[in-house]
């Protein structure tokens, strides 16, 4: 019996230590039942309440992409592939999968003059940070996009916002590569990056990440069975109409300057696409008419900062030759939901129509 126990112990030690030398998580992340046993997700996995959302937040980008419909085999020949990159408004917070920007554009069934079918993929991810967008974009370019639409808003631009998303902090290596490769104005040794210790790299240390991979697959069954990927509460809350008498914005001082905003990340993103056309869109924001609306547009933005941002954005786009559209006031105030950027299905439909026109316009121009 002692031999059995000894063999068991040796096997346990080997299995526990093996991941420290091989880091199997990215490879395991690519192994997915999505697009094989059940349909790919229409948006990247994200969810705080897995039991109700049938979705969960994890940090393995390979697994996140493998679960997405974008990973369903080769690109079809007649498809004009457009990827939407952005924040929670693009992802579709408080919207059902069929109500998101990408779903509404696809539902309209656009065809380009060369008869290719316009097919839009949702690669938005909640949390506003251009660095997070760049990280996702760096993975997305593998999927042969014909065009990228990058939806931005001022809240994504301040440097202090860039490295705080957990998705960025848990992916230090690819993010550091991007920071160093494009000489971004970010600290590659930022203390927020999660550096794995020896124990973290063992099988026991990685148990949470491994369990998340398994749970992502298991929730795929419920995604297939119900078509639900978000827990949308009955009472969604309301955006703030009456605003505080506060002129501050991220410790930045008026007048807002070009170097206050992370334009270098935007430039890096456009370089990362390797010549694929990119449309940058300033996404709609709620415009309040309540108390102190004379100094603030909404909960996020004082007027001085947002007006300066729009001007700087337009100037930078012109200087760099970017395809830029500013839809900041395109959606009526009543079509916003719980925050200044989240829209109702109707508001999203109006916005989807505007984006589709820009995509078709640019694709024709090329």
């Amino acid at each position, binding site marked *: 019996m002692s031999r059995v126990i000894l063999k068991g112990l040796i096997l346990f030690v080997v299995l526990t230590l093996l991941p420290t030398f091989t880091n199997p998580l990215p490879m395991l992340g690519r192994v997915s039942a999505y697009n094989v046993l059940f349909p790919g997700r229409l948006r990247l996995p994200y969810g705080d309440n897995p039991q109700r959302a049938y979705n969960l937040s994890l940090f393995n980008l390979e697994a996140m992409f493998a679960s997405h419909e974008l990973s369903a085999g080769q690109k079809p020949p007649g498809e004009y592939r457009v990827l939407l990159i952005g924040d929670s408004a693009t992802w579709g917070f408080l919207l059902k999968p069929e109500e998101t920007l990408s779903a509404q554009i696809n539902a309209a069934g656009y065809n380009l003059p060369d008869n290719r079918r316009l097919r839009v993929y949702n690669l938005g991810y909640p949390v506003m940070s251009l660095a997070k967008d760049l990280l996702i974009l760096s993975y997305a370019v593998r999927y042969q996009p014909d065009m990228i639409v990058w939806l931005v808003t001022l809240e994504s631009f301040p440097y202090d916002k860039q490295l705080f998303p957990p998705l960025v902090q848990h992916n230090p290596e690819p993010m550091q590569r991007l920071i160093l490769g494009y000489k971004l104005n970010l600290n590659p040794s930022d203390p927020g990056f999660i550096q794995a210790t020896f124990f973290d790299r063992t099988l026991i240390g990685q148990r949470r990440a491994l369990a998340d991979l398994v749970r992502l697959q298991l*929730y795929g069954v*419920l995604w297939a069975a119900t078509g639900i990927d978000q827990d949308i509460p009955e009472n969604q809350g309301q955006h703030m109409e009456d605003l505080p008498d506060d002129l501050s914005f991220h410790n930045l001082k008026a007048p807002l300057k070009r170097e206050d905003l992370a334009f270098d990340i935007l430039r890096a993103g456009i370089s990362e696409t390797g010549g694929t056309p990119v449309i940058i869109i300033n996404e709609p924001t709620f415009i309040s008419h309540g108390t102190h609306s004379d100094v603030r547009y909404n909960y996020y933005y004082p007027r001085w900062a947002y007006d300066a941002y729009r001007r700087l954005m337009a100037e930078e786009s012109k200087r760099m030759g970017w395809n830029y559209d500013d839809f900041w006031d395109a959606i009526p105030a009543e079509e916003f939901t719980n925050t200044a950027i989240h829209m109702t299905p109707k508001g999203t439909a109006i916005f989807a129509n505007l984006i589709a026109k820009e995509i078709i316009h640019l694709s024709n121009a090329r």
Partner: protein
Amino acid sequence: MTLLHILLLAALSLLAGSMKPRWRGPVLLGGSLLAIYWLQPATPIRNLDFWFPTASILLVALVWAITYEKRELLSRQTFIQVIPLAGVILVVGLTRYLEPLCCLTPTRPPAITQVIVAVLIVAGMVTLVLIRFNQRNLTILALLLLLVTFIFLKTDSLGQALSAGLRRIQGQDVTLASALDLRWLGFSYLAFRLLHVLRDFQLGKAHNASLGEFTTYALFFPALTAGPIDRSQRFVGDLREGSRLSPDSLLEGGRRILLGVFKKFVLADSLAIFALNPQNAVQMRAGFWTWVLLYTYTLCIYFDFAGYTDIALGLGRWLGIKLPENFASPYFKTNLTAFWNSWHITLAQWFRAYFFNPVTRFLRSSSKQLPVWLIILAGQAGTMLLIGLWHGVTWNFAAWGLWHAAGLFAHNRWSEWVRPRLAILEMPSRLQRVVSLTSWLLTFHYVVLGWVWFAMPDLDLSISVFHKLFRF
């Protein structure tokens, strides 16, 4: 039970199993008494998580006193046997005065004076009853007490009313009363062990187990939360035999525990993520995926229950107690009768012994000559209805029981009809295999569809799941 619970109970079992028999008994008794407090989940009603385990101990002592073959209850011997039980209650009660909150109870126990007064009052009342009433009436009283408590705990409306009453006594918000407040760990199994002892006593089978042995039987910690429902005579026999932990028992017990942990914490808990439940039953689309969720529920409930049983059997093995098997590959059976001989075996046997057999015997011997099929139908319907209601007094559990009763009756009649006809036929082996496979498929799917009643909280939702399964 969590993995930590299992790990610590396994350590206790290994320790107790390696002890000499004269020490093992007291360790098992103490371990079981402490485990009922330690495993009891917290309840929203103040101190109830202390009073439920205490009530379990008092009920055990009461039933022992009624059914013990030697009627020398007020002897010195009895007094000595009561000491460990009272001692554990007091020790657990005294943990109230330890800082920080001790690990034996989920919340702080009540004041020790309350504990002493309550236990003395109950003990006094029990003694008085024992002296005043004869054993026959006492047995009926105890049976009624257990059944009424069981019905209160298993019926939502009664449970809610009881919760409201207890909240009022404790000065807590009555509007928050819910049947879920009354989570009495292991009561379903404890009640059925005690009912078995009382019924046997009524039938003239008194036991000779000491109070310690009897308490260990009724509250045996490996079988506390999920059975199996052992028989007292068999259990006490094993206990007295006191076989020490051998390498074979160690390996076999360890294998069962590991298998149980794998079934429960890997398979069942993973399957539970996407098994059919009331939430996804409303949300799911009709068709293929509905079947997937239902099959998953089918496997999940088996692995969950069988996993706990394996753990209990493994721990029992280490302690020298061979608990009875509760499952024998039930989903591979080719008819429903065989299924019920291999699913939750000890519960089915309990109902067979104490309900089905007496009822059918009574109907057969009644002055009106009832047809055999009617006797079988009545016996099966009653038995399966009660098995359903054992899980909870709801329309759905009743429907689940009757669903199986209908299946068992149909199988019984079919067997009666087909057996003589098959006897004169010589079926080629290939055809026999086809018949077996078809029988298995039919049986399995009958059981699978039955789980719809079991998994849903009301009949409307169950019917809507059937609609989605068959798209009508």
